């Protein structure tokens, strides 16, 4: 052994440079053999690059399935595309930032800045309109210190200026909840709040927007003990626009029936109870409703054609 060296060092010192290279060459060769299939597979997988529109679609799909981080990274990695696609990508980035975990004040502020920038550039295209809606949502439910008044103003402006998309027309329901629950169980304040909401119905252009607005008002009035006749006007409109969720469609029919009975409109109540019994035969409430129908007194004949409340549902 050479003095001052460990046995391994003295071994390496003794062997020739060419021999010293042997392990490295062997290791390299093994790595190359091992990596070859992976490289080949990766190359095979590469295929054709996705278009910006396909990438956008993929990221939105991920967001629609709660895969917010994947969606966010997808939006982040996107390049190219036309101006509209670029704005949609920025909208996606802003909205998915709100879904990132852990939720941080910084992320919320970042999303707010991105949404405001989109609105400043163009408040009227798809991305601009959604940015307005999501800025309102951010202020109402995502911000650490919510600002419901500012959110209400944004919702209202959106409805005034850019209605016509069923999702954005949810703004009307949000205003309804805010105003009715602020009024609370005080009958006078509740009636006044409902009255002030009526013009909103005139702004709504989509069946889903109308359905959800009238559902919101009818449910809230019923829950807070508001005037049953007024609640019925809204419930009738909601019940006549098909709801894609069976539990909501059935509940809307029963709400219309229950409020009609409460308002003394027996035949109208019978109409909706009967519809419920026939359309929701597997529902756990079916038997109870049948029993109500059996004991229901007959009332004066009445048309069951729904009149649009306050002339809104033309």
């Amino acid at each position, binding site marked *: 052994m050479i003095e001052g060296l460990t046995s391994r060092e003295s*071994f390496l010192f003794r062997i020739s440079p060419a021999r010293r290279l042997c392990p490295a060459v062997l290791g390299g060769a093994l790595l190359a053999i091992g990596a070859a299939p992976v490289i080949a597979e990766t190359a095979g997988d590469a295929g054709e690059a996705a278009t910006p529109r396909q990438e956008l679609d993929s990221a939105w799909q991920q967001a*629609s399935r*709660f895969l917010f981080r994947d969606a966010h990274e997808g939006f982040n990695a996107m390049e190219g595309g036309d101006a509209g696609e670029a704005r949609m990508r920025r909208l*996606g980035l802003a909205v998915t930032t*709100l879904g990132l975990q852990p939720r941080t004040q910084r992320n919320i502020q970042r999303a707010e800045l991105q949404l405001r920038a989109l609105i400043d550039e163009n408040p009227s295209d798809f991305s601009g309109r959604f940015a307005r809606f999501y800025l309102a949502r951010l202020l109402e439910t995502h911000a650490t210190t919510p600002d419901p008044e500012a959110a209400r103003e944004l919702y209202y402006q959106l409805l005034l200026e850019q209605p016509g998309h069923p*999702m954005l027309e949810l703004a009307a329901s949000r205003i309804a909840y805010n105003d009715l629950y602020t009024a609370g169980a005080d009958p006078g304040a509740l009636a006044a709040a409902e009255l002030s909401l009526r013009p909103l119905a005139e702004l709504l252009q989509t069946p*889903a927007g109308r359905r959800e607005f009238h559902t919101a008002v009818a449910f809230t009035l*019923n829950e807070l*003990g508001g005037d049953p006749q007024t609640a019925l006007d809204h419930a009738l409109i909601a019940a006549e626009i098909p709801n894609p969720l069976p539990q909501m469609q059935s509940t809307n029919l029963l709400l219309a029936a229950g409020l009609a009975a409460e308002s003394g409109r027996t035949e109208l109540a019978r109409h909706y109870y009967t519809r419920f019994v026939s359309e929701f035969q597997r529902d756990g409430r079916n038997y109870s409703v049948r029993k109500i129908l059996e004991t229901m007194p007959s009332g004066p004949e009445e048309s069951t054609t729904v009149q649009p409340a306050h002339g809104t549902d033309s």
Partner: protein
Amino acid sequence: MERILNTIGISLLALCFLLSLGRIAWKSAARTGESASDRVEIRIAHWQLEGGIREAIDALAEDYMRLNPGVRVLQIPIPERIYKNWLLTQLVGGTAPDIIQLGIGISDERLARFFIPLTEVADAPNPHNTGTPLEGVLLRETFFDGMMGGFNPALLEYYGVPLSAHTLRVYINMDLLRDITGSEKLPQTYREFLDLCNQAVEYGRRTGRPLIPIAGSRYNSPFIMNSLFASQTQRLARALCPPGSFDLGAIRFSSTYADGRWSLDSPEIRSGLKIMREVGGRMQPGFMQVSRDDASFYFMQGKALMIATGSWDSSSISQQAKFPFRAFRIPLPDREDPEYGEFVLGITSEAGTNAGLTLGVTSTSKHPETAIDFLRFLASQPVNQKFTDISNWLPSVVGVNPSEATADFMILTNGYTSGFTLVPSGRADLSRLVNNAFHRLVAPEGGVEEFVEIIRPNFLRAQLSDSERNLLGMLSTIQRLDVQMAGVAGVAALQPDDENAARRMDMIIASSNMQENSLYNQRFVAEKLRERINEGDQ
């Protein structure tokens, strides 16, 4: 010497590496060979270790393999206790079986990430129903619950195909029943049930072999106790609900309590507590400390005459019990009951029951088409009939006849909506408050009054803390829903002609509005509860 050792070391390393490489190459070649010969393996994992289920799935898999010689179906039963951890490892490692039972350990996000949506499958007829009365009927319409057991309301898609359903029943040892009463007549009313319990105690005394009328445990007892309590609040619940509503729910429970429309002194509540004490006294002492298994042992060993549990235990009991048994609905007081009839509307409906044993297809499946086809096969009318006949579990498909053993468990649709219990679903603090004091309600030296006085000081506070926790949960749900909603809108904007995208958008709009409604209502009710507490109420 050292040089030789190093050379040997490097050689061994190289050898191991080459061996590993060779093995991978061999397995790949084997897989290629398999696909070349169209041999497909479908693995199906579930946690239903109850007797009969594995046998049923094996038999159906055999049938499927006979029809499809190129397919091999392999069943992987996993104990419920480790199912969640096992599943996570499999999903994250990318080695998950093709078909997995949904439920334990599957959050919405995991469902979205690791499973294939089956909405298109649900919206098409089941080809395996050809030649049956369900030929041409959409798959989702072939289930008694409209396939709601496989629908995920958060993701707004179908993700699973349900095979069975469950109901709650009281199981009874027929040998003991005959010995005690001299007949096989099952109790039809609450009074007959109570009388039978008393006869069982007397029989035990007479024979010197103590007999527990009802085997209780912290798992089994609530089934019977909650049903009895809810029978006493049936009329009250209807009176407390606003027009058109039949379900009090947790938020209205607190809202109406805060409004003073009912209290712990309401006659309905007192009556509900009294009936729970009455039946609790027919269970073994200390039953709330006893586990599910221990209660089952009491019944299986003939030390208890009855036990309340779900139809899922039927096949296990039939395999393990050495006596014949039957099952009957938990006998609630009827309107004619002299003591408890006043507050009752009538028997409760089971019509809202959703189908279960729901199977989904993983996105890592190498043969998703075959996996989906196998699920369709399982969900066809004749195959679901065979599943029911072998497993003795309830069917999920319409038109399937129950086996003789499942007749006692069939879902009864003619019945009223239920009343409410003292602890609405998902109320943890209220549950802790009530459960901690529960032994005082049923103890011989305790009673209704003592129980009420224990829970009263914190009854309102527990509701408030539960409401506040619920609010946070709701807010978090809505925040997630907001982002999801943007995703749905984005997809719909890019695919304006896609019907499914449009349908999902309509659904999420309705769903979002419903959630917002609950959030505002819960916030309002929490404020009411806070005001009541500030006023010094309990």
